């Protein structure tokens, strides 16, 4: 009997993994290509959620699901052009300070415009309800999140691994100087990757707005977990981030089954363990510029 319950937590953990993955994937992309540790990533996630609330009233949830990440992605273009670009080759501490400041500007900006109280938002009626598989319960909405997350991961994978664009990006991750010597300007690629990464955060914001409170600090709440996933997965590793998100979801679920108060701490234990055994993360590659 207990085995069944643990199995249920494991499967649910995989579902929760999709939730971590959406947030961590964009973070990992921006990190790998530009070396920017984007502490403002959670801020873009929060903007995505607020846009979802505003847009869903006018063009419906499905419309918001498409429009909100696009708008957030456009913010990404602006931020990359104006700010990130100046810090690719400088001391990482500067970009840390920059994005830390940006995170605070976004959080306080949301507070000034929308107030500190959470904005009411619910799952659209047509996506409510639960799916029962034998004894197990799955809210229909979480399956939608899983579906969209898989879609986003496949699309990102396709762009990075199966297009000419992606080949330049991957070459740029390994050796920007050689790419430059070959006469390719990395700048537009950097902009596109920032837009994609930040847009993914916006997508996560829309998807999670119906099941978590929409308030100014919501970005700060999820950011640490996203970083843990990126670190466990390994810098610059696409599959590593996916594995790490699933691992964190499952470990957290099973830990909560046995001892709830250790639930949130469990992911840090996993991180510590992984870093001890594999300092570059599960599937981290050796990237010259970060060594």
């Amino acid at each position: 009997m207990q085995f069944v319950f643990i199995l249920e937590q494991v499967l649910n953990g995989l579902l929760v993994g999709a939730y971590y993955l959406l947030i961590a994937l964009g973070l990992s992309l921006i990190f790998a290509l530009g070396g920017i540790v984007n502490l403002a990533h959670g801020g873009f996630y929060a903007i995505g959620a607020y846009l979802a609330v505003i847009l869903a009233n006018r063009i419906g949830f499905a419309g918001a699901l498409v429009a909100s990440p696009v708008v957030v992605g456009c913010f990404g273009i602006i931020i990359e052009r104006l700010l990130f670009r100046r810090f690719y080759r400088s001391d990482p501490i500067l970009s840390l300070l920059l994005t830390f400041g940006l995170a605070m500007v976004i959080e306080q900006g949301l507070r000034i415009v929308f107030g500190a109280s959470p904005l009411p938002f619910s799952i659209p009626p047509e996506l409510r309800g639960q799916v029962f598989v034998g004894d197990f319960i799955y809210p229909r909405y979480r399956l939608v999140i899983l579906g969209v997350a898989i879609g986003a991961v496949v699309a990102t994978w396709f762009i990075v691994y199966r297009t000419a664009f992606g080949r330049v990006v991957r070459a740029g991750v390994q050796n920007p100087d050689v790419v430059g010597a070959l006469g390719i300007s990395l700048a537009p690629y950097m902009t596109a990757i920032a837009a994609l990464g930040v847009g993914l955060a916006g997508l996560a914001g829309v998807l999670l707005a119906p099941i978590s409170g929409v308030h100014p600090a919501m970005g700060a709440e999820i950011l640490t977990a996203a970083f843990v996933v990126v670190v466990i997965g390994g810098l610059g590793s696409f599959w590593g981030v996916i594995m790490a998100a699933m691992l964190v979801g499952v470990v957290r679920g099973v830990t909560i089954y046995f001892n709830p108060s250790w639930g949130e701490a469990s992911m840090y234990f996993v991180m510590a363990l992984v870093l001890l055994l594999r300092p570059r993360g599960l599937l981290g590659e050796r990237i010259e510029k970060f060594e």
Partner: protein
Amino acid sequence: MTSSLSRRTLIKGATGSVLLAGVGTPAIVKAQADAIRIGHLTPLTGFLGPLGEYAVMGVKLAAEEINNAGGVMGRKIELVMEDSVNPQTASAKAERLIERDKVAMIIGEISSASGLAIGQVANRMKTVFINTGCNSDALRGASCNPYMFHIEGANSMYVMAVGQYLLRENMVQGKKWYSLTADYAFGHDLLRVAKKFMGSHGGQFAADELVPSEATDFSPYLLKIRQSQPDLVVSNLAGNQITNFIKQYSEYGLKFPVAGFGFDTVVAWGAGKGNFSGIWPLVWHHLVDTPSSKKYVDAFQKKYGKLPDNQSWGDYNSLKIVAQAMTDMKSTDPQKLAEHLRKGPKFDVMKAREAYFRAYDNQMIMEMYAVRAKDPAKMKDQWDIYDALGAVPGPNEDMETIAPPKDGVCKIG
């Protein structure tokens, strides 16, 4: 040489000074030489930020009304307002308000940990502090002092308010509770009181679990609740956690009755249609049917375009009480104010019965309320989320029956 004193250095300096200016100068609403200064110190950022925002709205409305009516003894009230942030900052700012800004007394706080810090400063500097949002019984027990007053209900009072309705609906005797508790001081204190109530009325825990305060996903807990098939799910959670919990409880479609022992209207307003369920306690809500309550709801709506919540009630009434007390005493002396309030004069706090601070622990003795989530189909708008269940204790019972027991732990008498 001029180039070394570059644009960057200049910008850095300018930014620094702007930052300092922002941190150093409290927001003074109206500067007047002979005004009575009142300190307002409450968290405006962090997970209690939403409540702090309402606290500010409440206290500002009270100041405006008092000043429009001619002030206190002909002097205007001037609010000196600060963000308390955390216990260390709260303590430092409380000292500064008293020493530098010469406030007559301090109103505010929501976090029990910061409330304790401000209370210690108030005691040391012999200045009244009225706590408007800290529920922990410990502030009324081992940590009590003669200068710290509590208009906010104690955890015991919240548990009794909801408890009366749980008893009435036969949810305690022989029933199994599944409780989720915020894993920090407030939650632990609340759990202790709730456990005592449950035990003394023949209930037991199916499980009693601590939830780290940074948890945003409740799905593993919801699966465990579903497995254990409890008779009642009990929330001892706090702030934004309650919003996340009720949203996801509704997402998983669980049908076990829900009750909470700590609650704020703002977190339920922020959950969204069809997500709110259960019975919850409040120190006051906008449906309370008394003349002064209706007047307050109207004035608040007129000024801010939205309904007042329970937190705004505390800060609004605290300032009104202080203004009335100072008018009655014809003095703003902090020590006299403390002595006056401890004598137990009665105040209209928008409830059916007048309230007073009892001398044992400076807790305001008053009616509490419980509310029940409304059927989503019957909600008129996004604010219309619950029905009033009435006041506790009932009209013929002594109001002190729900207060924390006089067990002698508080020794200010």
